[in-house]
């Protein structure tokens, strides 16, 4: 079943797909970020991938392109799992939002923005979710130190 889906995908979106890989029987696709929403909509409507299991970002410091947004999909009627990685450059940190396909992506994309700084175009309410609203910096990037970059401004107000 997975091979049919991958063959179909390769026919439809030949220029977008950079690599198809497999590790320990889990298949994944590496794509460019421009038509990611069309790919995901095509997968959701034709092969009924109705469960978005996860959406998150990865930082590859030292590689070009630096960031990747990973979508983990599962199809409940067909029992097929698939992973799609969209590569993002450091200069142009934007990607389309998939909130109208799966409403669960609302908070998942907010968390991705909070932790990495990736901006999702078309998101209704993109603001920080875990860190305070006036925090500077993006914590899960590899160049953000584990102990933080000094005191937060809010604590300085309280101490004074």
């Amino acid at each position, binding site marked *: 079943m997975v091979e049919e889906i991958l063959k179909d995908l390769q026919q439809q979106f030949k220029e977008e797909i950079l690599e198809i890989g497999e590790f320990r029987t889990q298949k994944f696709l590496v794509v460019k970020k421009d038509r990611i929403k069309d790919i995901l909509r095509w997968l959701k409507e034709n092969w009924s991938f109705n469960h978005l299991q996860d959406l*998150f970002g990865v930082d590859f410091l030292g590689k070009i392109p630096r960031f990747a947004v990973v979508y983990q999909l599962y199809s409940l009627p067909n029992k097929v799992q698939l992973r799609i990685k969209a590569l993002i450059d450091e200069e142009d940190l934007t990607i389309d939002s998939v909130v109208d396909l799966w409403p669960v992506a609302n908070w998942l994309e907010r968390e991705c923005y909070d932790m990495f700084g990736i901006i999702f175009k078309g998101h209704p309410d993109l603001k920080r979710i875990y860190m305070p609203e006036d925090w500077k910096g993006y914590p899960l990037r590899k160049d953000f130190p584990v102990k933080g970059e000094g005191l937060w401004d809010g604590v300085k107000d309280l101490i004074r």
Partner: protein
Amino acid sequence: MKGYVLEQIEPSKFVLQMGPHHPATHGVLKLFLELEGERVARCRPEVGYLHRGIEKLAETKTYPQVVPLTDRLDYIASMINNVGYCVAVERLLGIEPPPRAKFLRTMVCELSRISNHLLWLATHALDIGAMTVFLYCFREREQILWFLEEICGARLTFSYPRIGGVRIDVEEKTLEKIDRFIDGFFQKIDEYEGLLTENRIWIARTRGVGVINPEDAIAYGLTGPSLRGSGINYDVRKHFPYDAYSEVDFEVPVGKHGDTYDRYLCRVQEMRQSAKIVKQCIQKMPEGSILAENAIELDLPPSGKKKLHPEGWSTGAFISFLKEKEPLLPEGEIYSAVEGAKGELGFFIISDGSGRPYRVRIRVPSFIHISAIPKLAEGQFLADVVAIIGTLDIVMGEADK
């Protein structure tokens, strides 16, 4: 404070902040409610008061050192988090635990699930008003925590599973005690059901509250008993079997209407099925070793190459005759999911060959369920919001990572 923007609200609405300090929000959860009379017009939850940065910390520790970190995610049923992480790393590195370890992990996971559902029932009933159920459930939960303390030495943050198996074996008399407890446990569940299931006050408070239809439930990312109350049969233990779940016999209860009463019935039936699984595990427990042969050692070095004994297993620093060195761990990535007590708990781990994981991503069910509260609660009464938070079974330690 700087950085906040005041929003415009209409004059007829009343804004109520069900703030982080509240006895009914099960932790530090802030809910901004805009009320029109007694009905909720808009609801906006905010999380982040318990954020501890577990994903960032996990990148600085070696693989076995992350296990006590995962304890602190869902601290009510923490064995399941440990087993989830260990199963993910075992699938990534290609380690297969022995049969006795699989049955032990399954038994301990199901005991944790029973203890989590007991605490859920206690606090849910207490929020709605039935105070006796709270004390009855905690009487049984205390017994289960005594058994888990006999097995591994702690009551809350166990770190008992290990990558490749479990840490230490269980004695026969503990298994007999658990067996006797489970025999008497079915009558206790009948007691809780006798107090609540046919009670007209309970039915009036929970029937028709927080209804969600099946397509919306999947689209909003609900999993676990919250999804099965709406009629969809998705259980990770049956779709992606791990440990000994393919060798024990159990059913998955599924609801029909998608309201609070059906989710309550689902969870109570799950308690019965979990007790059945524990009994089968004790009967079928095989003999043998509890740790895989190619399991990684506890004091894994953060980088470098692995030393091998002539007969093949990896050694510590004391044995001086070395045969050859091979790269520490295979590279790759994996996503693996476990059936947590609240929903689907997923781990995505990227390994770059060294002793530390490159990226650990934890997909927590509570975070996603909190984002579905506005869909369930808008249009309901204020008293129903408390019932809805209880029925989704959220814990902030998990939602805030």
